[in-house]
């Protein structure tokens, strides 16, 4: 199935499995899976789309499989990238050596909306800025992976990685007997360990870690509460915290309790109305003062987003060479930046072959998939690019690998990507697996859940 050729060895037991499953059993299992998701309440709300805010994300039962040797390469590549991104952040908020060395133009950083003045000249605990790095990858050949983008702020979706596995183990225990699949359920413990390891120096006892959520109306609220529960930490909203003296406190039934590490699932702009957006009701007034004076740590650090910008993305291989002195293990997708004159010309001439993205866009919005678009759509996009070239980058459409996926007619290949979650604290940790997103319609390259993409369990075969 991969590249239309032979079925990889790892898929053999899955072949037997799905062939032994008659259609009615399959649809029974499918609805059982949906019920399991519904019962735990795992839902996905999409901003501004209206409809049912508690809609389920489609789950495809056919797992995606990585062999151990495939994973080993990914593992090394991801850790390398996460280390380089953090080194980059520590540098641009301090001495800016990479700029002085002429490897990255200064304006790409200082003029970047995600570059945070309030983060300059301050070292967060252990000098780590992005504690949870989500790296989106696609596969284009047997041993070839490309990084699509990095997520250094607060990548979401890890709850699906964990729940997909739970559901599969519950419904098809036999598969897990036949195959030796590396477990992912250590993630929560590693996340807590990572967060505790970056407590500020002023914290002299067991650190109190909390997750800060924008609240129940946020599309990822389920994930926030799920992770808090798995880690055994409080899930707080801004209103539960307050600043007094040198510290941040949470309001408990036993009175104020000091908080040491805040894993925030809130954008920079909203975390402190006294430093950023004054109209934010979601944040904690004075939080940045406590942070800067070393009374609390915020994960990820405000300003970490400057490393995952699509314009900075191009320079990540350069960062790896510059900070680590190593050759990049994972490749970038070749990218044309419309801000550059030559690239701009090339992009406009080849629109029908390219994928064009907004520099600051996310979630698959504001994007042109050239080969899948008609002429008028392409022309409309051309105008947008001409109006504001700096806002766009373009990439070739890759011949993405496809994974066997259940469809009405049985099994068919669908395009997939992968987001593993790398934890950076005292040590760098990575559970073997990640979230596989799948484009549910034939030929589609858009896997975003906000646009109807689904998810799969991701297997890494143990040695």
């Amino acid at each position, binding site marked *: 199935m991969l590249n239309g050729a032979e079925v990889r060895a790892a898929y053999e037991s899955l072949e037997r499995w799905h062939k032994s499953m008659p259609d009615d059993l399959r649809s029974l299992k499918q609805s059982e899976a949906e019920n399991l998701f519904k019962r735990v309440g795992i839902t996905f709300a999409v901003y501004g789309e209206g409809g049912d805010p508690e809609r389920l994300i489609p789950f495809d039962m056919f797992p995606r499989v990585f062999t151990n040797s495939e994973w080993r390469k990914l593992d090394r590549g991801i850790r390398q990238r996460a280390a380089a991104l953090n080194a980059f952040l520590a540098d641009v908020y301090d001495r800016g050596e990479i700029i002085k060395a002429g490897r990255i133009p200064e304006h790409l950083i200082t*003029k970047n909306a995600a570059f945070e003045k309030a983060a*300059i*000249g301050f070292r967060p605990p252990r000098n780590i800025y992005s504690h949870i790095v989500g790296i989106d990858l696609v596969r284009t050949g047997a041993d070839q992976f490309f990084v699509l983008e990095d997520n250094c702020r607060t990548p979401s979706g890890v709850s699906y990685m964990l729940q997909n596995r739970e559901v599969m183990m519950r419904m098809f225990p036999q598969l897990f007997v036949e195959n030796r699949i590396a477990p992912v359920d250590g993630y929560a413990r590693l996340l807590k360990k990572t967060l505790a390891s970056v407590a500020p120096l002023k914290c002299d006892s067991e650190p109190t870690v909390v997750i800060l959520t924008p609240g129940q109306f946020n599309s990822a609220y389920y994930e926030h509460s799920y992770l808090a529960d798995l880690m055994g930490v409080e899930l707080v909203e801004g209103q539960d915290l307050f600043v007094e003296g040198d510290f941040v406190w949470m309001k408990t039934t036993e009175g104020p309790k000091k908080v040491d590490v805040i894993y925030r699932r809130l954008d920079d702009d909203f975390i402190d109305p*006294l430093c950023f957006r004054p109209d934010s009701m979601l944040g904690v007034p*004075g939080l940045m*003062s406590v942070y800067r004076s070393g009374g609390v740590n915020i994960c990820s650090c405000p300003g970490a987003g400057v490393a995952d910008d699509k314009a900075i993305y191009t320079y990540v291989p350069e960062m790896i060479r510059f900070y680590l002195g190593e050759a990049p293990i994972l490749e970038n997708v070749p990218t044309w930046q419309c801000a550059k004159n030559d690239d701009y010309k090339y992009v406009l001439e080849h629109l029908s072959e390219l994928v064009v993205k907004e520099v600051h866009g996310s979630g698959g919005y504001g994007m042109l998939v050239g080969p899948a678009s008609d002429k008028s759509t392409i022309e409309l996009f051309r105008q947008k690019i001409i109006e504001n070239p700096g806002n766009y980058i373009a990439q070739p459409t890759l011949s993405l690998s496809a994974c066997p996926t259940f469809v009405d007619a049985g099994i068919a290949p669908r395009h997939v990507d992968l987001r593993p979650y790398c934890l950076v604290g005292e040590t760098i940790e990575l559970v073997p697996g990640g979230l596989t997103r799948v484009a549910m319609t034939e030929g589609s390259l858009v896997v975003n859940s906000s646009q109807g993409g689904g998810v799969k369990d991701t297997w890494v075969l143990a040695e």
Partner: protein
Amino acid sequence: MRLNVKHVTRYSFDTPARGLVQTHKLIPSTCGSQNILSWTVTTGDAIRGAAFRDSAGDMVETISVRGPVDELVIEVIGEVETVDLFGVLRNYRETVPPTTYLRRTRMIRPDTALRELSAAALEGLDGDSALNRAHALARAVNEAIEYVPGATEEMTTAAEALAGGKGVCQDHTHALIAVAHAADIPARYVAGYLHSGEDAMGEASHAWAELYVQGLGWVGFDASNRCCPDERYIRLCSGYDAQDAAPIRGIMNAGVKEHLDVSVAVMSQYQQ
């Protein structure tokens, strides 16, 4: 010149506030043009803490009051020795790369009129020095916006002030930052105090812009008074715009009406 500052801010609330948090940038830093001889900030019963020097060189401190609170008085008393450096910021410790101050906020976003004002002011000055170009921008803003108190509000943007043609020091400063940005010159908002004689525009609590001039570094321009800050000025703190540079930023629990009463006096004391 030796300047004495007394700056009293009094917040009073109709119904007692349940709690209150403020972030202050009320302590000036020493630099070439000013030497802080003494400076004290008192904040009544408020709990103080979380103090640090930010990347722009300003001292920041957060205060909080547990409710109920019906009044908060913040008193700043200080003495500063100043010299005239023609607006040039010298011997000042900060770590923000100047190009960071090309960031556009709502208050300083240049519209077409501001861009045209910028272009007109710089017309024919392509080969001129960076300093002269900055002066030309400050002059243009001074001519385009007349100093009229009460014509604008706290949230008036640079574009709105230019359209109305009237404003106070905040509007002049925002407009100057906007026209500088239009010419790709980093610029920022400075809040401070001014010992105003009879002819100076503005009150003792004052604001002006700093533009980054190649070769000189940051240089202050007071578009309201058509001059560069001299020994009558005390530089307090800076930011992207008035809001970012506000010496006092606060949040109160909802539903409380606040009254604000500010008095500032700056007196000079000539040395023997």
